[in-house]
């Protein structure tokens, strides 16, 4: 039971981490916390479903969704986020919450609120070892997480693009003054985040089941994860996600008072504790302020 809960925790945590990577991507590239990220992932899953329903094989449909999401992400930055950034941080927060509503409700209108049959590329079934069952779906999510995580890490730490992103967030005006086309950088980060979110969406749909509110709960946990890990750290998102997933499951199972109805409180406690010690998360960059 213990190991099963750990494994379950990892496979939930991988979902939060994957979505968390997308959140980190946007935050790092444009300094915005995108509360519509989960809905964009959900939309990607619907796109994949629709393309499949039109006759394309799943693999192609999912690729199409990931590609389309890159465009959607860029579009959202270009048309919405950029203008909102003229206000305060809160303006952007509200705008992404507005987008949340728009995407969520449109999906319900277009595809109804009923669950869609979403197969995806992973075979159905489980792999059991020593009494612990791991579904292929879950393995798919973990695999996608590893790929996206490593890719993102390399991109951010090993390439000029990564440096440009940090510069564009840290000081947009100076970034332009060293020749960085900040608006393209922002668009690229949103696009990339859209794609990572889309990977999350299409990989988790067989497990969470596709309906308009599919990603809502995961979004909350993903935010918990990136908060614990640090909003600008991909590694933080991964570790934070797994930590939240595992602790939530174990606490819900083993701590009597918590039980499953209060298990949502566990990530909160973790966040508060971690942040009190490290106010910018475990791996986050604490911005320097000196007099």
């Amino acid at each position: 039971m213990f190991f099963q809960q750990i494994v379950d925790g990892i496979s939930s945590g991988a979902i939060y981490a994957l979505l968390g990577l997308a959140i980190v991507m946007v935050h790092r590239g444009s300094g915005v916390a995108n509360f519509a990220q989960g809905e964009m992932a959900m939309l990607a899953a619907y796109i994949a479903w629709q393309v499949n329903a039109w006759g394309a094989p799943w693999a192609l449909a999912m690729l199409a969704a990931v590609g389309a999401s890159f465009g959607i992400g860029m579009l959202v930055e270009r048309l919405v986020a950029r203008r909102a950034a003229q206000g305060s941080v809160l303006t952007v927060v509200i705008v992404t919450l507005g987008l949340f509503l728009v995407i969520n409700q449109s999906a319900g209108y277009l595809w109804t609120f009923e669950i869609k049959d979403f197969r995806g590329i992973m075979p159905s079934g489980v792999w059991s070892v020593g009494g612990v069952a791991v579904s292929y779906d879950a393995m798919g999510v973990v695999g996608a997480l590893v790929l996206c995580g490593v890719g993102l890490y390399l991109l951010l730490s090993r390439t000029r693009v990564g440096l440009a992103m940090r510069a564009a967030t840290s000081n947009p005006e100076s970034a332009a003054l060293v020749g960085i086309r900040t608006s393209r950088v922002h668009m690229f980060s949103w696009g990339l985040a859209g794609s990572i979110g889309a990977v999350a969406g299409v990989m988790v749909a067989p497990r969470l089941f596709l309906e308009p509110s599919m990603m809502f709960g995961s979004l909350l946990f993903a935010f918990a994860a990136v908060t614990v890990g640090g909003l600008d750290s991909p590694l933080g998102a991964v570790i934070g996600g797994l930590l939240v997933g595992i602790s939530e499951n174990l606490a819900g199972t083993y701590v009597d008072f918590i039980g499953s109805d209060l298990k949502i409180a566990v990530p909160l406690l973790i966040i508060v504790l971690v942040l009190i010690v490290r106010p910018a998360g475990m791996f986050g960059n604490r911005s320097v302020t000196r007099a």
Partner: protein
Amino acid sequence: MSILSLRGVSAAYGPINVLHDVSLEVPARQAVVVLGANGAGKTTTLRSICGITNNRGSIVFDGAEISRMATADIVRRGVAHVPQGRGTFADLTVRENLDLGAYLRRDKAVRADIDRCFDLFPRLSERATQAAGSLSGGEQQMLAIARGLMLRPKLLVLDEPSLGLAPIIVRDLFDTLATLRSERELALLIVEQNADLALAMADHAYVLEAGSIVFGGPSEVVRQNDTLRRAYLGY
């Protein structure tokens, strides 16, 4: 031939006009200094050149009209701008700041240029891995200048480069600028309150007052002309 020329440039913040019909020229490989009391519009002039401030009029750099271009594209044509009051990337290290200065460059000389910056400002090499935001005011100013040099621009625009720098550093800086000008065929456009030093180094000078150019000519003229100095520069 001028590498930069402004013709009838005006600029405004909201409803308030702060530049009126400013025209000035920066000849190739020469140093031009812009002087004026505070609030005269010097910073605004420089920001207009780099497309940071909304402005009207014509700005031609290296044969191309740049007044409608985005900042990054102007920079890509070879203009480096060291803004007034820091403008460093506070969360990034000194080294990363310098790397970003060379963001547009692909050549092999980047390393050597970083070493050169460290020679000019030894302080920076001691602080290479420290976050720029934790530097002292003067150290940040050095970093901003060094970052501008890293671009290897055709035109280097400096907004009060001596701000917050120790006298010895200021002197070294101006020496280096003079060297670079001949060495790299660099043109310089400098706003500077330390008028003596700037005039000594510059070929041309402009004086701005309340958003208009009230004098333009060889810097020698300003140096020699006490009335002019007293009227506009207060000494």
